């Protein structure tokens, strides 16, 4: 073991959770060190100006670490999915779509509603002020007044351009008599906070080389660093050290540039490594006192993994839609089916998101629905008919927290530092399959309503494997709760077993709702980090976890 260092707080991971927590605590004058196994992504590192930008999106900019295989990536041992994650400063906000809807009030009350998922330890109303704080840091575009959501503060900018694709989809929803609304996005329609407006380039999932999309590298980190936070890159955390009293002493990390191991000591340890990375780290932190891994005495760490049930229905119409222009996802959202209605044959609900199709190469290989252009003489005829004429309806269904859907440690795979890889098992529950199928049928009705001449459904079914989703959202594996027997953290994100160990990322979510989670992850972390900040003198020495 080499270098020792001591901080008030050490944060592991620099994505939405780690960035927000670091910023809040550093601005309060605390000495905060954030350890990030990856590196900064410079504007010129993105593929946006290269002719082969689409190929890069499929390879070295793939959303799946197992495809990218960059030095800073770790493998994920799974046959069930292709999880999205980015191991670098900003975490997965480097290459997400920045779709920014809030959870709805009933999402926090599933225990009350049907009892097959827990109530959250707080309500929408308790979280709402923290959505506002985080939104101001991020910069959100949207249109105020959605009847399908509680009233809240206006967005930082107006909505992004809808283009012909938005008009056609809106007409379809209107014809069907369904709700639709411009989707809130953490992508700027106007300049805000020193960042420029989006110029509609259509390549959001290779990140944003302009800074218009809310990558934590451009939203939170400059402010956190200005406040005195230390962000240490190429620092891969191996395990958490505990002292004799069972409190976290700090973390041991590998300097990926030298291969040497160091300890970062701190009064408080915060994990923010996403719904796969955080349980992996806890499970790898075994000791005589914690033989099952840290904070895992109740065997809850790694369980209840959720991603959302997903299907994609694409449709092509005669009218040009400019499907290659504008943000990829999502122009608008239909929340007509978001609340539970038992008559549909399932609990929970879904939303339908209208998204775009990327460039010519991607549209030719079938865009998101694998409607691949034929090879041979008919190729160009197909291309003339389809290119820029399609739109995508994403079915985003709430998935239940299933104990068997879980992250454990791989017995066969390690990363380049010899640390066991996470092993992921995930199956969609039959209830959630019904949600997805219901959503597909509604999207097919939309296709009919807009007069589509071609429709393709992607159920993410792989021959011999079954449902194999891209797993864009990594949720639920270290959930918060009021019951120490069924959760990993209390309502302030403090782990039940280790009073100075906190978790602040997507793994905290007790339920997944039916929308993208990053705005909610940000709001939860702001809430938890502000509580930690306001009670730091007491909590840094805590011998017991707060019970309320």
């Amino acid at each position, binding site marked *: 073991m080499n270098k020792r260092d001591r901080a008030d707080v050490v944060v592991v991971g620099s994505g939405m959770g780690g960035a927000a927590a670091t910023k809040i605590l550093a601005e309060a004058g605390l000495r905060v060190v954030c350890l990030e196994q990856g590196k900064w992504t410079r504007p010129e590192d993105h593929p*946006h*100006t290269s*002719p082969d*930008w*689409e*190929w890069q999106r*499929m*390879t070295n900019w793939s959303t799946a670490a197992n495809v990218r295989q960059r030095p800073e990536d770790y493998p994920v041992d799974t046959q069930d999915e292709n999880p999205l994650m980015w191991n670098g400063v900003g975490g997965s906000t480097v290459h997400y779509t920045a779709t920014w809807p809030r959870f709805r*009030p*009933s999402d926090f009350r*599933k*225990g009350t509603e049907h*009892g*097959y998922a*827990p109530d*959250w330890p707080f*309500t929408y109303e308790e979280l709402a002020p923290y959505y506002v704080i985080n939104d101001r840091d991020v910069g959100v575009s949207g249109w105020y007044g*959605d*009847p*399908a*959501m*509680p009233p809240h503060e206006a967005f930082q900018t107006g*909505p992004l*351009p*809808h283009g012909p694709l*938005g008009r056609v989809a*809106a007409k379809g929803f209107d014809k069907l*008599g369904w*709700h*639709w*609304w*411009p989707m809130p996005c953490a992508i700027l329609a106007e300049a805000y906070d020193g960042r420029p407006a989006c*110029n*509609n*380039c259509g*390549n959001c999932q290779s990140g944003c080389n302009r800074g218009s999309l809310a990558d934590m590298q451009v939203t939170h980190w400059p402010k956190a660093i200005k406040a005195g936070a230390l962000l240490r890159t190429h620092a891969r955390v191996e395990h958490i050290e505990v002292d004799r009293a069972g409190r976290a002493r700090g973390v041991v990390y590998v300097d990926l540039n030298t291969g040497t191991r160091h300890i970062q000591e701190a009064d408080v340890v915060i994990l923010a490594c996403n719904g796969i990375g955080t349980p992996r780290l806890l499970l790898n932190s075994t000791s005589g006192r914690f033989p099952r891994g840290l904070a895992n005495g109740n065997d809850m760490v790694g369980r209840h993994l959720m991603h959302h049930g997903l299907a994609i229905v694409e449709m092509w119409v005669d009218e*040009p839609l*400019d499907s290659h222009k504008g943000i990829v996802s999502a122009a608008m959202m239909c929340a*007509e089916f*978001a*609340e*539970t209605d*038992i008559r549909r044959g399932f*609990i929970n609900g879904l939303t339908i998101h209208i998204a775009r199709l990327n*460039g*010519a190469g991607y549209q*030719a*290989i079938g865009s998101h629905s694998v409607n691949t*252009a034929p*090879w*041979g*003489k008919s190729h160009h005829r197909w*291309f003339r008919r389809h*290119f*820029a004429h399609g739109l995508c309806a994403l079915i985003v269904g709430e998935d*239940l927290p*299933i*104990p068997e859907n879980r992250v454990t440690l791989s017995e066969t795979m390690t990363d380049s530092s010899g640390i066991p890889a996470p092993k992921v098992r995930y199956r969609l529950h*039959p*209830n959630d399959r019904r949600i997805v199928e219901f959503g597909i049928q509604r999207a097919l009705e939309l296709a009919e309503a807009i007069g589509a001449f071609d429709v393709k459904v992607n159920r993410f079914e792989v021959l011999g494997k079954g449902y194999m989703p891209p797993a864009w959202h990594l949720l639920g594996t270290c959930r918060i709760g009021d019951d120490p027997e069924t959760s990993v953290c209390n309502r302030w994100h403090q782990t039940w077993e280790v009073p100075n160990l906190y978790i602040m990322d997507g793994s905290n979510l007790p339920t997944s709702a039916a929308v993208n989670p990053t705005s909610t992850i940000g709001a939860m972390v702001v809430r938890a980090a502000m509580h930690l900040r306001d009670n730091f003198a007491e909590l840094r020495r805590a011998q017991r976890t707060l019970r309320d």
Partner: protein
Amino acid sequence: MPGNKRSAKTESLNVRKASESLAALVDVLLPGDSLFPAASQTGAHQMLAERLRAHQGADAVERLIASLADERRAFADLAPDQRIKVVRRLERAEPNFFAFVRAATYFAYYQHPLVVRAVRRLGHDYNDAPQPDGYSMPAFDPQVNAPQHRRGFYKKTDEVAPVDTSSLDELLGELPRYPTSQQ
């Protein structure tokens, strides 16, 4: 040495034949028409070879060439109809490998300036790359783009009440149950 010379010459011929076969393959996949160039005119076969080696293994090009040979005749030497039959055979026999070949070829093709120009001639505003220019789109116009309906609802926190799930008992049977909170 005469033997080495013969071997070098044979190797050179093989390399040339392999290149011709890859060019013929990409032209079967993406032949030209009145507007679009044939794939080999864009160098898609060279990019295909690079991408095969980078992502499918060092011997992937040789594997593809071998898969395309028909009764020991190189793909480049086959008649046009026979080439199509051979490609169909490969598509059936090795669907995953073929999908890679097709995707790599399509992406290589559509990134070429000649093809980008052809896409533009179809009437589309289409850039060589997403940046630096991006695309001009009319800003969101509330008069045109804002929803005019008042559809949509949500359950308020205090409106969330237990639903009768008895009709779904079989579906949900084995799942753990959670208590309601007291708030």
